[in-house]
């Protein structure tokens, strides 16, 4: 003869088992986003995206993701980003929370005498396009535009770089 207690015990085991299983499934389905942390900020445009349980990364410059760049990846990856504010999320079975990251612009000029000895080699060592004003003997001489990591040999005695 089956006791009512056994029926209630089976009820309990089945319900609790289902709840525990669903809890683990929900946890496993949620992408585990490790890096970059939310509100990450750096002047280094190479950003490591580290995550688990996800196979797609969405990156956009607005929180609505109206025109996202989509990266189909199955592992961590490094992305080079221009200076700006970005919103990103990972997608696996479900989507992760939206995180933001900021790449700060870095203005950096390197100057050395040119190999020929005539003028100076001016290098944009920053991460954004620069306007470089060239002065010679105290007077403004010219303005050139230098892309990141580009260089140009210039004549002058003062070089001033600012964001274009």
């Amino acid at each position, binding site marked *: 003869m*089956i006791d009512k207690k056994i029926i209630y015990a089976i009820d309990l085991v089945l319900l609790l088992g289902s709840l525990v299983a*669903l809890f683990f499934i929900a946890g496993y389905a949620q992408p585990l986003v490790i890096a970059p942390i939310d509100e990450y900020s750096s002047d280094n445009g190479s950003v490591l995206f580290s995550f688990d349980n996800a196979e797609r990364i969405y990156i956009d410059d607005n929180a609505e993701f109206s025109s996202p760049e989509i990266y189909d990846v*199955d592992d961590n990856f490094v*992305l*080079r980003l221009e200076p700006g504010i970005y919103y990103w999320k990972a997608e696996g079975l479900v989507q992760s929370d939206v995180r933001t990251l900021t790449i700060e612009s*870095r203005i*950096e000029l390197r100057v050395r005498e040119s190999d020929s000895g005539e003028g100076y080699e001016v290098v944009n060592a920053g991460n954004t396009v620069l306007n470089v004003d060239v002065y010679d003997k105290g007077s403004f001489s010219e303005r050139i535009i230098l892309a990141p990591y580009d260089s140009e040999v210039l004549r002058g005695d003062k*070089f*001033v770089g600012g*964001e274009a």
Partner: protein
Amino acid sequence: MRIEKFLVLAMIFIFLVFSVSAIGVTPGKITIDYEPGVQKHVSFKIINSENERIQVVLSKQGDLANAIDLNEREITLSPGQTEREVTYTVNIPSDLSPGSNTAQIVVLQVPNTQGTSEAFVGAAVAVITQLQINVPYPGKYAEAGLNIINAGQGEDAKFVIPVVNKGKADLVDVKAQVDIYNQLNERVDSFTTNSIQVSQGSRKELVYNWKADVPPGRYRAAVALIYDGETINLEKQFNVGVASLEIREIDVKEFNLGQIAKFDMLVENTWSEPIRGLHGQIQIFDSSGEILADFKSAQSDIQPFEKEVLSLFWDSAGFSQGVYSAAIYLNYGDVSSRQDVTFDVSQNDVRITGVGYVISSSPSSGGGSNSLVVILVTVIIVLIIANILWFMVLRKKLHKKVK
């Protein structure tokens, strides 16, 4: 003695040739909200990338120069001090005109006559960090841009129109009327985007996917952005079907780190004309964006709708295992297309991951995610069946037996 003198002169010569003067600031531009009469403290960093003793002088210029108090005017960074934070004070004026108001903080590296590299370089170097205050325009005022992502024939060209509300009121009805013209200036299509709201000070995007059911070629988009009765006109040229080269596959056989690796890049010409003088190029970067390797293929011609393999050789000596960012270029004539990718380098394998696809030299480890989905779905189905069986069938039967 003569040899010693010669060595000293040689050292001086090397210094003269290779000495570098360098200075940086970050961020290059700071934008703050317009709050009349408020005092704010703004910070930026001076970067001493050469790790030398440098002396800098700060000065200010621009429309907002009088509103800025520099708390420090001369700063010395010692060797090993790679950066230094500087704070200045902004007293935001209450009478700024609408629009963008700016000031520049000039950081000038003082030529050092004590024997550092600057004395040898002989030129002064300065960098600028900008301060920008955007003052809202009275009433309703918007600024907009236009970006068009080219598409192949029959595909969707994406129109993205960012709208920034720079006025003092919310914009409640913002939409765009777009006309497409061919090279004969004939209108070939028109569409209107949906309407959005843009609150004061915010930025939103109008996005429309236009199906390019037109012959390949160059087109012009004339956009009338209409916001609450006002109109902004924008124009841009774009291509249909001209994004003509596609990387179909990159094959890296028998990769061994430290040796020369051969990359076979399969490129397809999807354009209706031959492409001559095509060559591939790959650049690999370190974490700071410096180029570690730069290698190219030989030049090749591709006939319409045909595929061609471009071979590139990478000397991986000196590289260690790890993840590197890289760029793949396809260059022909004056055209250069770039694809940002990631190289995941291990001892016997290099995996190349890029936008929208994963290319690998080894069999893909993909499918794990799909099998996970199958497992999870199976578990859920088993749970549902177990619950239904128990509560709807077995439990009722047992309950009757108990009674």
